[in-house]
């Protein structure tokens, strides 16, 4: 089958790119550690070889305790956001949908703000700061609110969903900004909230990866299982029902899955925009709209993209760090413009 060969080729290529990106990102950073040393360290760690350390203990700590978890974290977050974006674009039948459309971003922001006012900063749970956990809950809570608002007589219409999402985003964002302005204690913590808003992948340790990696992987696999139903949704909700899709149930599950993946990403990385919108959008234009390929490709491409963006963000102004969300916006904006101009005709349906 020609399409099967194409699928395998594309996926192998993307896996290769991801692998290369992660290697590159581990080798380069604010502090120079020679790639040869890194290779030896890696082989030592895997017990494949036993080299005498020609490097300092600090170097090993830099690579394996500081850099590598952040690289892995970036890959997970990129994959989660890109797949969430694909899910929403397919479900809402809108190639411009992004993971934050139905309230995840403002919910997380609201959660972070509340946590900073009422909860002590030192509270943490298995490696996750209290702000992360509340951000996660806030994101899911907001989506639940949006879904409930949009549900009329047992059905949730897509347009109502988007409108409710916009409304909830406005509302929660406004409340958060209001609190930030009025509550005195928050003035000093404002920079932390800005940090969240613009997204960053810093200070991630293996405890967090160990918790997040399996659940994000699970989410990615579940998403892939919805591929053919997601394809069916492009016929419209009625059309999808005609080909046997349980529309209301699938809508709820896909929304929950997308929200869950987004919440996972947001809780450790803050709000990183454009990845969830551009990656699936661009991949669809290049490889076609078939979700069976698109979902897997989005995960891989999203991971690679964010790993490389993270690399640039932390090296371009070394030893200072550029906020990751700002960088993705700087890249995403022009890319979006380019896509718009290049593929204008295809948008005019």
């Amino acid at each position, binding site marked *: 089958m020609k399409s099967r060969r194409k699928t395998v080729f594309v996926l192998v290529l993307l896996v290769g790119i991801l692998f290369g990106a992660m290697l590159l990102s581990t080798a380069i950073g604010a502090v120079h550690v020679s790639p040869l040393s890194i290779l030896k360290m890696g082989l030592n760690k895997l017990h494949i070889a036993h080299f005498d350390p020609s490097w300092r203990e600090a170097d090993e700590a830099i690579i394996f305790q500081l850099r590598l978890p952040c690289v892995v974290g970036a890959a997970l977050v990129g994959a989660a956001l890109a797949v969430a974006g694909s899910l929403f674009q397919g479900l809402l039948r809108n190639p411009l949908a992004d993971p934050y459309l139905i309230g995840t971003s403002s919910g997380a922001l609201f959660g972070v703000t509340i946590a900073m006012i009422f909860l002590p900063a030192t509270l943490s749970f298995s490696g996750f700061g209290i702000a992360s956990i509340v951000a996660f809950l806030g994101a899911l809570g907001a989506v639940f609110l949006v879904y409930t608002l949009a549900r009329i007589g047992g059905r949730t219409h897509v347009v109502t969903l988007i409108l409710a999402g916009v409304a909830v985003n406005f509302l929660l964002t406004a409340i958060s900004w209001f609190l930030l302005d009025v509550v005195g204690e928050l003035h000093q913590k404002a920079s932390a909230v800005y940090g969240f808003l613009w997204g960053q992948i810093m200070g991630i340790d293996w405890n967090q990866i160990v918790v997040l990696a399996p659940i994000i992987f699970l989410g990615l696999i579940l998403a892939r299982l919805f591929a053919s139903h997601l394809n069916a949704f492009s*016929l419209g909700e009625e059309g999808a*029902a005609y080909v046997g899709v349980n529309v209301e149930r699938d809508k709820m599950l896909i929304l929950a899955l997308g929200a869950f993946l987004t919440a996972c990403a947001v809780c450790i990385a803050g709000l990183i925009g454009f990845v969830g919108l551009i990656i699936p959008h661009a991949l*669809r234009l290049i490889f076609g*709209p078939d979700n069976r390929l698109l979902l897997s490709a989005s995960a891989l491409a999203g991971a690679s993209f964010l790993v490389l963006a993270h690399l640039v963000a932390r090296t371009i102004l070394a030893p200072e760090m550029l906020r990751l969300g700002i960088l993705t916006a700087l890249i995403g904006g022009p890319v979006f413009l380019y896509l718009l101009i290049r593929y204008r005709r295809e948008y005019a349906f």
Partner: protein
Amino acid sequence: MSNLLMKDVSFSYSDGFALHHINLEVGAAEMVALLGPNGSGKTTLLKLAAGVLTPRWGEMLLGGISLRELSRKEIAQRIAVVPQYFNIPFAFSVEEVVVLGRTPFIRTLSGETERDYLVAKLALELTGMESFKARPFNELSGGERQKVILAMALAQEPRLLLLDEPTAHLDINHQVEILGLVKALNRQNKVTVIGATHDLNLAALYFDRIVLLKEGQIFADGTPSQVITSDIIQQVFSASVEVSQHPSAAVPQIVVLPEERRNYES
């Protein structure tokens, strides 16, 4: 054994429109037309038959099994619907669209099989769209798109095919082509067909049986010769027509009488 049985079915939308006491029995391999003025309930009846709407009262049986007991997927494995159009916002190819018809048969964990692609291919051949399979669906003309939609429905290998005014917006040549295809399927593959249409003449020509709806109820049910009479047409459509015989087929055809000669009887 009948294919579709609607026993005393009633349904209403929240804005009040209703279907009352629909009793309809469609046998296997029958080709039935649903006629009636706008708002008489044709689309509603089709949606009930497709299992997309649930009746307030009454029973709907497909091959003896109540539709209520079947899942959406199981219904879709037996019944396929051909609506007027699909608005597909993504650049799927014709082949990809037709494969969507296999969705009710695809197992989540294994994806499409060789057979699925084979069935899709056959459906494309049956509708004469095989050569279009790599083209983007959105770039096709209206008639071509309708044939693809028909192919998609056929890919479901349905026992019952429901058509919702599938030719209303098409040129006459495409109308003839599609109806001809459907009729051939009915005759050769024994697919039961229920088709809603506006066109009385085409209905008479292609369908064996006509069910005429008026204001949510079945007004008449029989062969074209039985149902298409100037009297019945006058009662249901409030239109004056003259009924004559088709030059080659043994079916009635209506001829519209222009306004100056209308009798003002209600």
